[in-house]
């Protein structure tokens, strides 16, 4: 994605010709010498926002919302339409201020709706590198380590649910 426009697929050599390209985009992985290599996601980062934007700027612009920190439960369908994610810690945001901690929070959305609702990203000073060692795909399942990095980002009108 570049400036909100979808520009390239993540391809392997066998797929490039299907979309009229001459070479792959290097997304072929196997998790061991004995596994069949196939297309899967490479490391993916979200570009930080402008230098001057900080986390508080994102919070100030929210009248009624939730601040989510860290990593929690995650699940997404096979075509990446419907996802549900949790977090590690949650705070209410009321009237542009971070308030009390809350629990039992998860958010669900359709991928494209969610990213369309992103209206602010904090600057490079807030960028942090994260990732997962157990990204699963395939039958039999193969595990892959992936790196993801981002700065805090704000999404409008996400569907937040209360869990058990």
């Amino acid at each position, binding site marked *: 994605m570049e400036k909100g426009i979808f520009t390239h697929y993540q391809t392997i050599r066998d797929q490039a010709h299907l979309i009229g390209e001459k070479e792959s985009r290097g997304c072929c992985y196997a998790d061991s010498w004995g596994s069949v290599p196939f297309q899967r996601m490479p490391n993916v980062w979200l570009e930080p926002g402008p230098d001057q934007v900080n986390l508080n700027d994102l919070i100030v612009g929210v009248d009624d919302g939730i601040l989510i920190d860290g990593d929690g439960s995650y*699940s997404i369908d096979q075509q990446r339409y*419907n996802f549900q994610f949790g977090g590690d810690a949650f705070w209410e945001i009321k009237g542009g201020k971070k308030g009390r901690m809350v629990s039992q929070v998860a958010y669900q959305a359709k991928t494209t709706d969610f990213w369309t609702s992103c209206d602010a990203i904090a600057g490079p000073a807030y960028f942090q590198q994260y990732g997962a060692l157990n990204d699963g795909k395939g039958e039999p399942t193969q595990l892959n380590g992936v790196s993801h990095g981002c700065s805090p980002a704000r999404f409008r009108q996400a569907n937040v649910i209360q869990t058990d």
Partner: protein
Amino acid sequence: MLTREEAKKLTDRVLSMTKFPECSVSLNYSEAASIRFALNGVTTSGFQVSQSIAISVSKDNKTGSTSLAEFDDKSLRAAMQRAEQLAEVAPPSPEHMPGLGPQKYAEYENFVEGTAAARNPEMIPGVRTVIEAARKKNLVAAGFFQRDANVNATANKAGLFAFERWTDSRLSSTVRTPDGSSSGWASRQSPDIAKVDGEAVAAAAAGKCDQWRNPKPLEPGNYTVVLEPTAAADLVQLMGFGARAAEEGRSFLSKKGGGILLGEKMFPEYITLRTDPFDRRVPATAVGNAGLPAAPVSWIEKGVVKNLFYDRYWAKQTGKQPTPSVGSLILEGGTDSLEALIGGVERGLLITHFFYIRAVNPQTLQYTGLTRDGLFLIEKGKVTSAVGNFRFNQSIVKLLQNTVKVGVAERAQGFEGDGMITPPLVVKDFSFTSTSDAV
């Protein structure tokens, strides 16, 4: 296949390579043959031999571990040295348990020679059956047929030697319409490859794809559901009965304010959930948890919580016996067919299986995930239409508490986990929280 004698010789050799007071060795060897198919044709035929040795050494409660796949003396000695170096710098574990001494195991194995010897001639008929069924309906089949034969040998310096062999086989297929607008799935598995029913996989996968065309959207909410055995297995296999978590207040088996729910009737009378390593339908062995002799364990009997799982450390701390077995779960069934269960539902949903199932709240066993490959509306005891996929958020404890009927039990395994033996279930108030456009 690696023999008992060869395994003993090899583990003895590794154990002799250290002067540390404690050393344990786990040797794994497997042979797997497979056929992968897609676009109604075979794409890959595979045969894979894997071997590995995991070495663990301990001294003064400090443990170092490593593993390797080369069994020559030089490699083994280098691995042993690495494990010893790691143990030297590791912090002592306050929960370290000394190696288990010699054990006596039941004369039992579920190793089917026909499965261990099977190659393409034994697997192609099943694959062909699925592809032909798809072609006949102008559908597109993809899938995987694999069989494996496995050996594990565990030995330690305290004198333990356990040797186990088992086989398993599985044919699964996803059948889709050429335009990708409908999808069906089915799987059959058995330690005996001769019992893997290709006709059943073909009929179910192609049939569901055919039937699921033009799904209509329904509003999310609470529905009565009929879970086919795979859908039931996807969720019920996630039940855990750890004593430590219960006693430390971290589990659905913890009582509010202290204490545990052992002995309490938490579920309906017809819910009995147990482990049986000696059931021929599952690929289990006579060697149980942590090298203990395997034995059947009842977790829930007629709705009552009967046993909790104690590992060796927690058993010692609490003065209990360690639990011999986990896994090989069996949810007792009844006599009703799936069709009979559907026939008894006034309005509900029939679920084939689930996808991407993850814990939301470990304490209530609330999980989330999505329906996939066939979701159908039941009205007045009959399947009346295809329905668009849903995301669920559902506690598995509540699922068993809300189960109103069970059918005939069978072995079932979905995309995730080892599966189990379970009947189809009728469950009221199953919670769907959003829709998904995925096919």
